[in-house]
């Protein structure tokens, strides 16, 4: 392909965008709309995943130590725990701290346990977070094998429930996102097909005059890329700005609990930026090339 030919393609693509301005607007706005739907659901999904992993990170193991362990032994146990790669943070809780916590938990009825300080029935313990919550059971067992550890508790039932819920929500939003994405892409491909259909006469004329398939395709391809890109950037702008505005707004109101556990706007935009640009481009390019196939056979 000569450089002049490529220049012609670009010229034709831009001319066509202008001359079919009505259709160009339709294409761009459809791309924007589709990317907005996908983006909206994607943001929703990313946040759900984010919140879910937040919840999962809250899962703790509690390793109760035998009543008679000495200070040195505790240090030793801690070192052993630290050497375990599956364990995240390690916090030591003495039995005095445990009692204090308990009395706070039962709140107003504190009087019920007054006098227990002198005769503390509780145990020293390590509070551990783990890196992979689904491994909780096995890690607990391995820790119980350490000398000086009496028992490891982690509220099996609750962990189980939490894990099931988060896993359910994760996969549900993933499924919904994927379905919506597929439907949206289907719609946009329909739209592109129809725009190309409106120009099938033009395509066939080019072929009758002796243009090769690629010669016909190139201007459409460039046109598709430009329109797809414009669509992607517009969608990104709308979505990014709304999300920024929304999280910002939420921060100063009663919704701060929620907004604080959302992915920050900057990070979110960074994360979806390239998906959008690549998505918009490929929608435009692949969409027009595929839709043209039928009309090139003349």
């Amino acid at each position: 392909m000569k450089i002049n030919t490529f220049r012609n393609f670009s010229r034709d693509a831009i001319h066509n965008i202008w001359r079919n301005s009505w259709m160009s607007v339709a294409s761009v706005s459809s791309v924007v709309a589709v990317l907005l739907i996908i983006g909206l659901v994607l943001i929703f999904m990313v946040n759900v995943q984010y919140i879910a992993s937040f919840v999962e990170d809250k899962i703790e193991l509690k390793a109760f130590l035998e009543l008679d362990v000495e200070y040195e032994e505790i240090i030793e146990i801690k070192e052993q725990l630290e050497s375990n790669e599956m364990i995240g943070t390690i916090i030591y809780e003495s039995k005095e701290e445990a009692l204090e916590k308990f009395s706070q938990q039962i709140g107003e009825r504190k009087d019920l346990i007054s006098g227990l300080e002198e005769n503390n029935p509780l145990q020293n313990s390590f509070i551990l977070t783990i890196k992979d919550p689904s491994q909780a059971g096995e890690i607990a067992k391995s820790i119980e094998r350490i000398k000086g550890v009496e028992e490891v508790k982690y509220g099996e039932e609750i962990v189980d429930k939490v894990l099931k819920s988060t896993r359910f929500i994760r996969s549900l939003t993933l499924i919904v996102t994927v379905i919506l994405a597929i439907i949206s892409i289907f719609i946009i491909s329909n739209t592109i097909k129809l725009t190309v259909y409106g120009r099938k006469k033009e395509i066939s004329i080019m072929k009758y005059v002796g243009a090769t398939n690629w010669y016909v395709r190139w201007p459409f391809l460039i046109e598709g890329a430009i329109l797809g890109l414009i669509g992607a950037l517009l969608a990104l702008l709308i979505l990014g700005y709304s999300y920024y505005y929304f999280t910002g707004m939420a921060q100063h109101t009663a919704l701060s609990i929620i907004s604080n556990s959302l992915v920050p706007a900057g990070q979110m935009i960074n994360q979806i930026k390239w998906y959008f640009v690549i998505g918009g481009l490929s929608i435009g390019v692949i969409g027009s090339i595929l839709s043209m196939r039928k009309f090139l056979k003349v």
Partner: protein
Amino acid sequence: MLQLVDICKDYKNGHRALNNINFNVERGEFVFIVGASGAGKSTLIKLLLKEENATSGRIILDNREITHLKQKEIPYLRRNMGVVFQDFRLLPNKTVYENVAFAMEIIEQHPKQIRRQVPMVLAMVGLSERAEHYPHQLSGGEQQRVSLARAIVNNPQLLICDEPTGNLDPNTSKDIMEKLNDINYRGTTIIMATHAREIVDDAQKRVITLSNGEIISDQQKGGYNYED
């Protein structure tokens, strides 16, 4: 240069548009194809262009069988021919100038060459003033002349014209015929389907007459002699 051997063409709905067509065209000939409306003239031209495929028979162009061609080879075949279509087939989004230039662009001619050649052909068909018009801004005859300009701009070996004067007044027709004669003298083979009795009678060239899809006469220096 061109040979048609036992060509038949049945359209999908079963209509037989061409029946057992045989003729040769020598390099540099000027051949009129005449016949009543619906006789099969355009169909014959569509076969040459590979717009339709023959149902049976063989077409040989420049010693090369083109009866069956791969999709990919068709564009290169078409580039060797200039065609004036009965329904013009201009690109609606391109101006007159751009429509003609397009035929040169697809064979990757140099822009300088394009800028020199296109105004020349437009002047030839009398459309210099319409260069910046879009097809829908032209009269029927003007569109027809753009189609002609596009067909000749690349100096093709073979020029095929389907009714190139159907929308032209007698004077403009005569001008156009003179130009075609010039082109023919310079070596281009011309095949022209037409109804214009005056033109055929004046030209004294070879005339092939079709009737109901069959050749009923093929005369050197003939006239428009088709009678029902």
